[in-house]
């Protein structure tokens, strides 16, 4: 039975107003709380550790899997999920974790997700993190995402930390084989004294593999952000990292991109920028009738969209 808090968390992390159609697995406070499978998508509980195996049949098209996690009390939860994305399938996977912590204990969820995207398969993966609650206990989320993309596979990752997470360490590692494609869009907001660390490594292993990483973050108040982006070109390949951060108040941001080529036909680019909101942007919106606060909110909302 979903409480009002559960429903709010589900809406924040997965845009869900109710239990979704199709395959889903809901995890609440460290335990399974609902599951549905389809003829093409099976979900099996792991026997050796907490977590699930999601198995998508070859050729599955247009189906989705929702695997949201809700933490509504001060517990520390760890889960290992494995995804098998069958050859030539085309699927959407919506993950995400919402924490409502009204206690003085730490609420933590560590999600280790491992994906095998088989030949010619296409996967869009959306992961949102959100925290709330009036308690003094910390809200901590540490996702680890490991993805193997076989020949001609396409992976699109949308990863967002919306609000309310006190500490996070995000590790992402992707291996791209021949002609595989990766697009990563990361959005992250920190405020108060929150900290966020994001480490992304992409190995371009196969010929004509390509990767594009776009990161946009906002650091407010006294929060701290550290980013490590690594693109490693082992073959004839293309890679582009673009990181933009808006820094405000007394926040701190470190953006540390690395591109390394181990093949003379690798083309790798990185761009990184950290700066305040441009005064020209604020002035323009104010000249259209917005107060400075409204203009600032509009710029940040657009930037993190």
């Amino acid at each position, binding site marked *: 039975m979903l409480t009002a808090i559960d429903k709010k968390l589900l809406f924040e992390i997965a845009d869900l107003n109710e239990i979704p159609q199709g395959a889903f697995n809901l995890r609440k406070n460290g335990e399974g709380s609902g599951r549905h499978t389809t003829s093409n998508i099976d979900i099996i509980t792991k026997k050796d550790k907490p977590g699930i195996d999601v198995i998508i049949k070859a050729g599955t098209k247009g189906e989705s899997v929702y695997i949201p996690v809700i933490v509504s009390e001060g517990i520390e939860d760890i889960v290992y999920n494995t995804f098998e994305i069958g050859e030539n399938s085309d699927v959407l996977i919506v993950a995400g974790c919402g924490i409502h912590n009204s206690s003085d204990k730490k609420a933590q969820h560590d999600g280790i997700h491992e994906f095998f995207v088989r030949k010619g398969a296409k996967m869009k993966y959306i992961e949102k993190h959100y925290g709330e609650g009036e308690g003094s206990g910390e809200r901590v989320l540490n996702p680890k995402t490991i993805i193997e993309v076989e020949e001609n596979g396409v992976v699109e990752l949308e990863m967002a930390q919306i609000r309310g997470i006190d500490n996070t360490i995000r590790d992402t590692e992707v291996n791209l084989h021949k002609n595989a494609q990766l697009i990563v869009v990361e959005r992250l907001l920190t405020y108060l004294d929150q900290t966020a660390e994001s480490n992304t490594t992409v190995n371009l292993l196969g010929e004509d593999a390509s990767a594009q990483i776009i990161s*946009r973050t906002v650091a407010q108040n006294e929060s701290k952000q550290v980013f490590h982006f690594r693109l490693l070109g082992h073959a004839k390949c293309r890679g582009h990292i673009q990181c*933009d951060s808006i820094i405000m108040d007394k926040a701190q941001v470190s953006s540390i991109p690395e591109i390394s080529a181990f093949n003379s036909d690798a083309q790798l680019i990185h761009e990184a920028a950290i700066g305040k909101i*441009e005064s*020209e*942007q604020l*002035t*323009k*919106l*104010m*000249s*259209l*009738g*917005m*107060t*400075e606060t409204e203009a600032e909110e*509009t*710029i940040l*909302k*657009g*930037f*993190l*969209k």
Partner: protein
Amino acid sequence: MLEVKNLGLTLKGDEGEIQVLKDMNFKLEDKKIYVMTGPNGGGKSALSKAIMGIYQSTSGQILLNGEDITNKTIYERARMGIGYAFQQPARFKGIKVRELLEIASDKNKVPEMCDLLYDVGLCAQDYLEREINTSFSGGEVKRIEIATILARDLKLAIFDEPEAGIDLWSMQRLTETFVKMNEKYNTTILIISHQERILNLADEVIMVADGTVSEITTREKVLGEIRQIDSDCRCRQSCNKGGKAIADCDR
């Protein structure tokens, strides 16, 4: 409708304070088109920014329909019906053309936005859903900037060098748009420009030099003077056949 009284403006620069406007006095009347022109660095942009509230004047008064707006903020002046098209418009990562036009006005229906973009020479279906980021050329951003002003129901619209970055093929439509804005919506228009095509729109021309209004005159007089200077330059170039004469003309 707008009265500027004894306006002064001092700005802080790398080499200390600079007085950019000195004891400025002039009036703008309802429903007229004014073109402000004069030498570079004379104070035209500073004056227009002081009217919008982007620069806070250090002395004097600005009145809008009799109300003193000297100490009002940018957004208060915007809400009172003053609009400003920037010479070098801002770009916004994450904000689409459609969203900026929605912010600018209540004309948030797609057909209305299409009309606005058509007026500035852009095809709406190619632009509405695009972010106003570095993928746009300077001319495209400039046209979108002008569209945000056309979108608003304004008493006074200020355009700072609207022709900069706009190709000749689009200028004709743009000048027609200024006239339409003036006639249909009774908006008083103040354009900073050096272009003859824009000067031709002027009911009156405000000459600004050395931080003050040197003259308010007719477009015929200004255009006549420009043509005379142009003629003199050509004459001197052909007589002297030298680089010095051309350099003099350029000045």
